[in-house]
């Protein structure tokens, strides 16, 4: 039975040298210097776009949460329309407006049908939102209160407390140290003029990139981008993000919490988006804890011992060193054992490196599943926006399988030893005592 399966695999992989090439990413500047990245995706009469500003929580200053709050306020009134009219204008044409902030960016997005009259209404509303937000006092108070209640509710969750403490622990004084949503105290102190100032400084043409994926011609996309960027003030690009210093030494902190499980996070700052060590770290982590049901951490913690439902590790590359994080949740009485096992799995991996077989399996997974990464407009937009914001090469996706295939066992081993220093590991646990 197994032999037959191998035969099937072999036959198919020989027969199908994947002749698939996705549409290339087109990049240009509008007449006023707006950066545009476009992929034509015909087939469905729809378009997805995302305007990304260098205005993440790293720009919060002392107002922790201001990037996120500014971002949520945009749609609460703009130009001649109040919050209800804006909602009605999108809903009436079946358009979906979205917005979010993360550590490095704040973005606004639109999904619309491409039928001219529908798209026109969605786009004109979108343009007003980004260029003429009203920032009214009552809307500001309302959204602030909602955010505060949301934050309070998250205090019910041990996972949230763990995350908040973990970031503080690995980043210390760096602006990556606070959560994007901010804190109750800093939000309470924020005023509307703080918000207006943040918007004026960061929501500007020179601080933005536009990604578009959908059923448009290049000419249509050009026209759309031209109009959109024209609405924004020129402004200036945000200053470089400060460098991250690594924690001075390892530490372990436990927070008592009335829960049946203890949530554990462990890690340290580790990886930039444009990092020379990106691929060995990425492929190495795939083996360690990134490949879902077959990773080493999953195997040691869940499959062999039944200690947790989820056990994982990941790198989140950012402009400056983004976190390497390992995580699990287990009933309180097992937490010490689980933490030890997690540390040992990491230490062994760093010390010994992966086996050749493990590497080959990971490479097969990553290259064989390459096309799954952008099999929808939604996923493709994520990539295009990421490539645009971090200024990655336009052939980033094309070259991905080759870069993965070139990674060696020795490289993974030496890069992990250099970049994931276990003597600096920060471990946070949140849960009940026994």
């Amino acid at each position, binding site marked *: 039975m197994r032999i037959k399966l191998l035969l099937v695999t072999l036959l198919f992989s020989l027969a199908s040298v994947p002749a698939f090439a996705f549409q290339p990413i087109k990049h240009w500047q509008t007449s006023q210097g707006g950066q545009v990245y476009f992929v034509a995706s015909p087939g469905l009469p729809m378009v997805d776009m995302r305007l990304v500003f260098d205005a993440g929580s790293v720009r919060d200053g002392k107002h922790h949460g201001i990037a996120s709050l500014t971002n949520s306020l945009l749609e609460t009134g703009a130009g001649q329309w109040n919050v*209800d009219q804006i909602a*009605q204008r999108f809903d009436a044409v079946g358009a979906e407006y979205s917005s979010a902030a993360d550590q490095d960016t704040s973005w606004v997005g639109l999904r619309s049908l491409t039928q001219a009259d529908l798209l026109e209404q969605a786009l004109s509303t979108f343009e007003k939102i980004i260029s003429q937000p009203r920032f009214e006092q009552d809307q500001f108070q309302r959204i602030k209160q909602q955010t505060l209640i949301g934050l309070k509710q998250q205090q019910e969750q041990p996972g949230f407390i763990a995350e908040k403490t973990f970031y503080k622990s690995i980043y210390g004084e760096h602006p990556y140290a606070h959560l994007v949503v901010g804190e109750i105290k800093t939000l309470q102190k924020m005023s509307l003029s703080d918000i207006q100032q943040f918007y004026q400084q960061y929501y500007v043409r020179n601080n933005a990139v536009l990604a578009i994926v959908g059923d448009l011609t290049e000419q249509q996309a050009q026209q759309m981008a031209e109009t959109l960027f024209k609405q924004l003030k020129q402004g200036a690009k945000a200053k470089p993000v400060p460098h991250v210093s690594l924690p001075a030494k390892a530490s372990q902190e436990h927070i008592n919490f009335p829960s049946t499980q203890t949530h554990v996070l462990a890690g340290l700052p580790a990886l930039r988006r444009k990092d020379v060590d990106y691929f060995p770290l990425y492929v190495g982590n795939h083996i360690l804890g990134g490949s879902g049901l077959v990773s080493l951490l999953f195997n040691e913690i869940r499959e062999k011992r039944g200690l947790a439902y989820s056990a994982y590790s990941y790198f989140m590359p950012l402009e400056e060193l983004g976190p390497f994080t390992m995580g699990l949740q287990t009933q309180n009485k097992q937490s010490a054992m689980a933490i030890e096992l997690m540390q040992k799995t990491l230490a062994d991996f760093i010390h010994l490196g992966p086996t050749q077989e493990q590497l080959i399996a990971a490479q*097969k997974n990553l290259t*064989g599943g390459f096309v*799954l990464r952008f*099999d929808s407009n939604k996923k493709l937009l994520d990539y295009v926006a990421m490539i645009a914001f971090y200024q990655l090469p336009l052939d980033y996706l094309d070259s991905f399988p080759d870069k993965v295939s070139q990674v060696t066992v020795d490289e993974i081993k030496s890069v992990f030893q250099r970049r994931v220093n276990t003597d600096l590991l920060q471990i946070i646990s949140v849960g009940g005592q026994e």
Partner: protein
Amino acid sequence: MIVRLFILLFYSFSIHAAEVQERVLTNGLKVLVKEEHRSPVVVSQIWYKVGSSYEPSGITGISHMLEHMMFKGTDNYPAGKFSEIIAENGGRENAFTGRDYTAYFQTLEKSRLAISFELEADRMRNLHLLAEELDKELQVVMEERRMRTEDNPRAKLQEYLMAMAYFSSPYKNPVIGWPSDIENYQLADLQQWYQQWYAPNNATLVVAGDVQAEEVFKLAEQYFGAIPSEKIKTLKPQPEIEQVGVRRMTVKLPAEVPYILMAYKVPSLKTVDQEWEAYALDVLAAVLDGGDSSRLPARLQRGQQIASSVGVGYDLGARLEELFMFEATPVKGKTLLDMEIALKSEIRELQRETMSAKELARVKAQVMADSVYEQDSLFYQGMKLGMAETVGLGWQKSEQYREKINQVTAEQVRLVADKYLLESQLSIAYLEPQSMRANTTAGVNHAH
């Protein structure tokens, strides 16, 4: 303008809709294929007609437990091998269990579909359940329950509400099962559950992606064709007994923020006498909570500013009688009672006044647009077909959805609100937060 808009939308849509193709193998396995050639990817899902609503008391959650054990090996492929092979082929896989179904899926580059078929066909009949694997996996499921429910006050409130709202319907039990049932599963229980429900004539194989339907049917015949069909026991009907008055409960748990759930007994598409009623209930849900311009966000979050968050849930695709559910968090300074009164006042208005043509047009425009957007996801397309087929509606129902919604009138929405959102059919649960602080302290110890 709105009217013209619909005609155009409808037209442009009919050009793009891919047809579903169906073949039933002689052993009863139904195979559905939706060709979608936008990228060289295929999704394969196998849906079994079994879920938590099939479970007798004492072994609640066993469908979900069995779903976990399905990754624990056959004689041909021992524990872990399934996932290893899928991973080596660049695939993504997982499984999920609901009230009315258990489903397994793989997403692969299109030429590798046969790998998924071979492995799924193997574990449809050859699962080798081992006591030692069950011991470990029981612990995993207990951890899953702690994570999802025990340490989540809102999830607990929902669990308590379900147990109160339903008396005789199996929907009263949580999908993951009650804790002591989970702790006491025996290998024989799982063996029997597997024998009873995992057979080709109790399953639907859904394939969506860059494939040719005829080739998929051939492959399905090759791998699944030889599996004999089984006699599948007829499920007892277990209808919900009539509710004859409002049910209320207050749940006190360590939490920070109060929360309310209100649930009205309503029919699903499967249980309803007149189909249009279920579609009208679906439109009703969208009028209340479909987009930022819908009534609850517009009036309770923005207008009156009573709710910090608010939402509505209705699953028209349920196999048994369903709940039309409201959930809300009051803003600071408002009580759960204020929230309840505000929600009921919205309901009363829907019962008394027909909504404007504009409001109805908005809902329909969104449904139209969604029917285009959802084609961007292969997985979701497969999911819709699998669900409709597995609850016994037939996959064709999911293809008719857009058209049926388009036929709903404003008066029909008023009628269903008036007929079903009745005080006597209501179950209400309040979450009253108890202090968490007393127990929360921090202690630091530095290693090295």
